[in-house]
Each structure stands twice: as structure tokens, then as C-alpha cells.
């Protein structure tokens, strides 16, 4: 199971690197938008940051992702990689449009960052549970779509109450399938 976790690190890390590089021109483009169009408090993009630093962080994140894929100094860099990726995509989403396609990627990189995903040999750790965690995150991220059904949310719960028990899952599924 260690090999599977390592393979997932390489695959997801490579996807993250290719995705970030492909979006790089767009990341540069948003840094040139007027500051007045910045929407703070999206993810960890709490405030407007000078374009130089945004581009520097995105570039550094790409370098860290290469190290992440190679498993080089993994313990030192994996957390920073996850933070760099989260900041880069939070900032990209902080201009009025959240890019939901990046949610799961960031969550997976975070989970891998906490996992022993660069072990060179089996040290008896519970590798399988980390692989299961990645799968569970995938499912949970999209199951989260189901209760997002504003029509059925009682007004009293609109502020963030526990409305979930009021919403039978099968009815939600039926409704989603109609959309």
C-alpha cells in the first residue's frame, strides 16, 4: 500500500504542477487587475498583495511541486507546497469568481502533505488509511453539493443552522438529477 500512496503523490503532484503552469498566464493577468476589483477573504487571500509577491509565490509553488513529486526533502516542503498552492488559487479566485475546479486539488495536496507519501521503504505505517482518506475527501467534497439546496433551507436555518437532517438525501438526489 505504500507504493500506492507514493504513486498517488506523484500523480496528483504532477497534475497540480501541470495545472498551475497552465494557469500561470491567467494568474499573472489577475495581478494586473485594479485593486478595487479584489474580493478579500477568499480562502487564505485575506488582503490584496503586490503582484510581484503573488507571482513569486506561484513560481516558488511550482518549484516546490517539483520537489513534492520527486519526494525530495518531503517533510520540509510538503506543508509549504500545500500552503503555496492554496494561496495561489485563493488569490486567483479572489476577483469575483471562485474556481471550484481547484478545490479538490488543493485538498488532496494538503492530505498528501500530512501523509507519509514519500517513504522510500515500508516502515509499518498505516499507508492504506491515507489512500482511503484521499478517496473519502473526493466523495465528501461532492456529497457537499447535495444539501446546497437553498429552496429547501428554512429561513431560520439560513444563517448556517443544522438543516441537514431536514433534507432526505434521496429527495435531494432526485432533485439534483433533474437539474
Amino acid at each position, binding site marked *: 500500500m505504500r507504493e500506492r500512496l507514493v504513486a498517488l503523490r506523484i500523480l496528483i503532484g504532477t497534475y497540480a504542477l501541470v495545472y498551475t503552469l497552465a494557469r500561470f498566464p491567467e494568474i499573472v493577468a489577475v495581478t494586473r487587475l485594479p485593486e478595487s476589483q479584489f474580493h478579500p477573504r477568499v480562502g487564505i487571500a485575506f488582503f490584496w498583495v503586490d503582484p510581484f509577491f503573488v507571482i513569486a509565490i506561484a513560481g516558488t509553488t511550482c518549484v516546490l511541486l517539483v520537489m513534492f513529486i520527486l519526494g525530495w526533502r518531503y517533510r520540509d516542503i510538503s506543508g509549504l507546497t500545500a500552503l503555496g498552492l492554496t494561496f495561489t488559487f*485563493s488569490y486567483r479566485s479572489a476577483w469575483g469568481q471562485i474556481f*471550484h475546479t481547484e478545490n479538490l486539488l488543493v485538498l488532496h495536496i494538503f492530505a498528501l502533505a500530512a501523509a507519509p507519501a514519500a517513504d522510500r521503504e515500508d516502515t509499518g505505517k498505516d499507508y492504506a488509511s491515507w489512500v482511503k482518506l484521499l478517496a473519502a475527501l473526493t466523495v465528501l467534497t461532492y456529497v457537499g453539493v447535495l444539501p446546497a439546496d437553498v429552496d429547501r433551507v428554512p429561513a431560520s436555518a439560513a444563517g448556517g443552522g443544522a438543516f441537514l437532517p431536514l433534507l432526505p438525501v434521496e429527495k435531494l438526489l432526485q432533485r439534483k438529477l433533474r437539474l
Partner: protein
Amino acid sequence: VKKLLALAVVALPLIRDPRVDDFPLSTYPMFAEPRPTTLAMDYALGVTASGARRMLSPQLAGTGEVLQAYALFDDAVRGPREGLQRLCTESAARVAADDDYRDVVAIRIVTGRHDAVDYLVRGTIGTEVERIRCQVLR
């Protein structure tokens, strides 16, 4: 414990107001309401010397992302007038520098209201209210 914590954190949107989106933990509000076929949105149009309308690409608003361009126009129309003026002027400057739009002489930022099926299937354009117009200076 780390794994259970990760799952709990990712499940947090389940108990959050579904209208409040965030990143990377989203409530996916775009799936939360029935979708009417009528769409109202703000966007820019090019105008040629003969008065014909030309669709513009989102790059001319300063972003390659369609949805981000949508948000930029939405913000500008609802925000202070100078923001709208600046977006129009900057878009016009990009149009002036792009040979593909050499026939465009002015930019109109409009609020359009279209029936999506009529527009996409039958080519029927709905109503468009002009918010601002600026010349393309070459």
C-alpha cells in the same frame, strides 16, 4: 486523528449557509437553485463603423477566464461609475491593439437579458441596456 480532522473540516460546508461560498471548502451555491432559462448579465460588445455588433473575447477585459470576465463586468456595473469607465477604457485600449478587432470603433458595456434557449438555439437576441460607451482610439 489527523484523518478524522481532515474529514470533519471538509464536511463543514454541510452545516454552513449554502449561499456563502469559499475556497477550497465550498457549498457549491451554483447548484443550489433551479436554473431559469432567462439570463441577465453584464458584458461588453464591440460596435463597428456600420453599427454592427461584435462579440468580444474575455481577454479584452483583462482575463482569459470567461467567468472571471463575467464577475469583472458585474462588479463594474454595480460599483462606482469610475470603475465602469476604467473597465470600458481599458477594454477599448486592448481592442485598439488587437488586429482581429480592427473594424471595432467603439465599446458598449451593456446589461443583456436573454432567454438562453432562444439565444443559443434560435439566435434570438433579447434586450440590451447600455451602461456606458467609449471610443476605440487608434
